[in-house]
């Protein structure tokens, strides 16, 4: 059975639903406290959302520099999949495992809302069950989620998800936080580390309002099975 580590830091709070979504996709999820480590035995690592260390300094900054992130780096260097959602994406960006940075939303507000996302890459371990150009409905919940890259051209081929309208239109009207080019999900060069601000685990059952996020976990589990 595919085993997925769900990391916990002080202030992590999306861990339970993350594990639930992983299990719903047919894998086994185990919580790993950041001081414990031992990631080598898992097939994939997920850093869930929350407010690690109270978002002090910058969201994700302190967790990104904790010792377990060295293990995550080694895990990723071996080509195994690492997913960071919301605060998990902020941690990956702060750790330099994905390109770009996340900063305060345009509008200076915490935004909790349903958005549409366009799938830009279906060739990653996380998106094999999606079609390129497909539109998903998945919620966001963040205050520091505005994606920024000094040179957006250089990250263009790393973009996995982008904010869009219900028909896939990329337009400033559908950009809730001011992210550059609507970017809200990016991978590393190798494609095995994905950071995304939207919460697929909150859209993994029709009773949550959408099931569009479930296929992300199913893709991951399938990829791990080889």
């Amino acid at each position: 059975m595919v085993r997925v580590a769900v990391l916990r830091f002080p202030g992590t709070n999306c861990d339970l639903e993350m594990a639930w979504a992983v299990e719903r996709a047919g894998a086994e999820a185990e919580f790993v406290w950041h001081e414990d480590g031992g990631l080598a035995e898992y097939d994939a690592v997920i850093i869930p959302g929350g407010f690690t260390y109270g978002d002090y300094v910058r969201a994700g900054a302190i967790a990104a520099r904790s010792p377990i992130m060295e293990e995550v780096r080694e895990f990723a260097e071996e080509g195994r999949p690492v997913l960071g959602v919301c605060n998990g994406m902020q941690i990956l960006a702060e750790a330099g495992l994905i390109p770009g940075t996340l900063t305060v939303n345009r509008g200076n507000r915490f935004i909790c809302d349903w958005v549409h996302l366009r799938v830009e890459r279906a060739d990653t371990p996380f998106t094999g069950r999606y079609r390129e150009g497909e539109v998903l409905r998945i919620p966001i919940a963040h205050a520091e989620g505005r994606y920024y890259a000094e040179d957006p051209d250089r990250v263009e081929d790393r973009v996995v998800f982008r904010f869009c309208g219900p028909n896939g239109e990329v337009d400033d009207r559908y950009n809730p936080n001011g992210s550059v080019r609507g970017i809200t999900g990016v991978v590393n060069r190798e494609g095995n580390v994905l950071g995304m601000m939207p919460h697929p685990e909150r859209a993994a059952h029709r009773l949550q309002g959408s099931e569009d996020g479930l296929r992300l976990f199913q893709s991951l589990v399938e990829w791990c099975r080889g």
Partner: protein
Amino acid sequence: MVTVEVRVSLKPKALDPEGETVKRALHRLGYEEVSDVRTAKVYRIELDVDDEEEAVELVDEMCRRLLANPVVEDYEIEVVE
């Protein structure tokens, strides 16, 4: 002991949503004169070293490793005591 203050601020061209919000609030209070507001964060750090130069060097390293995000932020270091 040396005490150092670090001031971390968004780069001049980076969007500062908190500054914008404060500017609007000041306008609402009647301060029409306010044309721009930029925010910054100040850390006051005490170090158990005797040499100021060494303190600044250490704090500079801390800024690069944790306190500032070089993509969007600038920092200034000042010895205060």
